[in-house]
């Protein structure tokens, strides 16, 4: 193992540990542990949002897309993903309005659609979708970073993912504040590391203008035996896709991601509505810098290595550039940036899925009241279990994991777009609409994905668009066929001060117990 990497790892861990300690001090109550007490300022919240957004999959995958497709990747993928963020202010504007906002997205489903039930099945259903989606996605993150760390350090794959597991656990056990503060640091590492990588590539390709001029002249295939690129093809906004196919790619990259539950959860952490609205916007500006660096890395990589060496896939372009075109210290810093990207996404998702199990399933369905301190301890215990399960999956990823991970954002879109947007903007939409819209959305997403994948129907419109259309239609029909939602369901999102009955309903559902009652309970 190289001394530069050891040194960088030690420095990274020491600074990370400082933020972990700061974050862990703020996790005494259930509100702090699950949602940061709805009190995060704009700087922490933007760091929290940005680091989760930039994953190892995007840091390694985006240069690969640019390398193969050229600027078509900017049209379909960059613009699609950024459009997902562009939709988030619509959610932020409403979701963060209540005096006591929900702690989780499954809880939003409960309070918005069935506020009077004792135990919510809709909350359980939403949680199950999150758990399946996130564990699969985290497994893929662990696999990707494991192979990268192993290739660059000489450590075995097993040891590499074990190190990643340790980092994940120390950041996640302190709850949301710990994850948020370490994410703030990780955002800095990602931005600086990737900017350095881009600046290391630029002189080797003759600067920005020369790099693009040379990219325009590339006619070789991206991989040995692949299809040759036409001259200037790197700049085609459509690449080899039709307009319809590109619109489909754009939509499938944007629709689902806009309601993936960890994004609205980050909006909930904000200290007020204004901060929640500004979070995705300011994050977009930082992510723009990150993606500009990745643009240089992907296109510059194609100029430096017009065709990948035999036996190598395009997703190995970034690791190849690090080992062959950067000095070891810089390579170590860039590796730290990729590690930070993987860590900040994985810890956020592990925390979300564990809270879904303990808060939205166990606490929701439990007949006895679970004390806050017990809840936090149970969640911390389960965090270890969930992280270990994801790591065990990563040791030998089952086929279904890769499959679910590839479709996870579409799955979230199918399940949550209708209930989230209609629930926040239409008073009438009711419980029957939420159940039918979410369940039918998921089923139709699976069916259309299979039909498109097997070539039974043309894939011009992606499965997520079909499923969202079906889900929304059904929700509108149900909202008119059945009784409108009670005022306790919609009031928090439409008025500044809710009625007494609504407040009582919320307190009961969220098990918000007044201090004096808590004392009485403890005395008993």
């Amino acid at each position, binding site marked *: 193992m190289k001394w530069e990497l050891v040194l960088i790892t030690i420095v990274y861990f020491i600074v990370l540990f400082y933020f972990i300690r700061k974050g862990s001090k703020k996790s005494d109550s259930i509100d702090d542990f699950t949602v940061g007490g709805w009190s995060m300022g704009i700087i922490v919240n933007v760091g929290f949002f940005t680091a989760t957004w930039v994953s190892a999959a995007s840091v390694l995958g985006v240069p690969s897309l640019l390398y193969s497709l050229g*600027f078509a990747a900017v049209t379909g993928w960059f613009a699609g993903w950024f459009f997902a963020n562009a939709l988030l202010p619509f959610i932020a504007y409403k979701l963060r309005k209540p005096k006591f906002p929900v702690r989780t997205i499954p809880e939003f489903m409960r309070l918005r659609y069935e506020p009077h039930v004792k135990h919510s099945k809709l909350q359980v259903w939403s949680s199950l979708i999150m758990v399946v989606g996130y564990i699969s996605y985290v497994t893929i993150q662990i696999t990707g970073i494991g192979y990268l760390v192993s290739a660059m350090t000489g450590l075995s794959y097993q040891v590499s993912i074990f190190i990643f597991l340790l980092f994940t656990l120390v950041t996640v056990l302190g709850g949301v504040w710990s994850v948020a503060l370490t994410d703030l640091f990780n955002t800095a590492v990602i931005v600086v590391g990737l900017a350095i990588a881009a600046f290391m590539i630029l002189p080797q390709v003759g600067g920005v203008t020369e790099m693009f001029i040379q990219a*325009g002249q590339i006619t070789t295939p991206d991989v040995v035996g692949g299809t040759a690129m036409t001259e200037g093809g790197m*700049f085609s*906004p459509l690449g080899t896709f039709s307009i319809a196919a590109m619109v489909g790619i754009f939509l499938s990259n944007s629709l689902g991601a806009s309601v993936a539950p960890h994004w609205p959860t980050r909006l909930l952490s904000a200290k007020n*509505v204004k901060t929640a609205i500004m979070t995705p916007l300011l994050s*977009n500006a930082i992510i723009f810098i990150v993606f500009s660096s990745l643009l240089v890395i992907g296109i510059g990589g194609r100029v430096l290595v017009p065709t990948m060496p035999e036996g190598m896939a395009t997703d190995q372009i970034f690791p190849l550039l690090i080992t062959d075109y950067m000095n070891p210290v810089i390579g170590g810093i860039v590796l730290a940036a990729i590690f930070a990207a993987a860590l900040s996404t994985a810890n956020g998702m592990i925390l979300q899925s564990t809270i879904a199990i303990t808060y939205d399933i166990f606490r929701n369905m439990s007949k006895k009241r679970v004390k806050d301190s017990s809840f936090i301890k149970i969640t911390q215990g389960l965090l270890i279990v969930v992280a270990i399960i994801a790591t065990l999956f990563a040791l030998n990823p089952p086929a279904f994991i890769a499959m679910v991970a590839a479709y996870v954002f579409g799955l979230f879109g199918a399940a949550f777009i209708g209930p989230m947007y209609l629930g926040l903007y239409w008073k009438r939409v009711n419980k029957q609409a939420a159940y039918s819209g979410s369940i039918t959305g998921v089923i139709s997403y699976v069916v259309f994905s299979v039909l498109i994948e097997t070539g039974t129907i043309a894939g011009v419109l992606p499965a997520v668009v079909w499923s969202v259309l079906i889900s929304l239609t059904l929700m509108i029909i149900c909202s008119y066929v059945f009784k409108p939602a009670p005022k306790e369901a919609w009031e928090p999102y439409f008025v*500044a001060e809710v009625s007494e009955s609504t407040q009582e309903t919320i307190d009961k559902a969220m098990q918000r117990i007044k201090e004096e009652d808590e004392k009485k309970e403890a005395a008993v």
Partner: protein
Amino acid sequence: MLDNFLGIPSSGWIAIAIWLTVNVVPWIYSLFFVHKINQSGVERWGAKKPKNS
């Protein structure tokens, strides 16, 4: 007319323009939302100052 700018031909700038658009447009309606919050006077939403002060 310029064939290219920064080495990127006009076709490439179409892709970049789409990307920039999805970055810029959300600011328009988001600032409208912020304006509505300020007008509401509800401090816990982040309004600058209460309506009647």
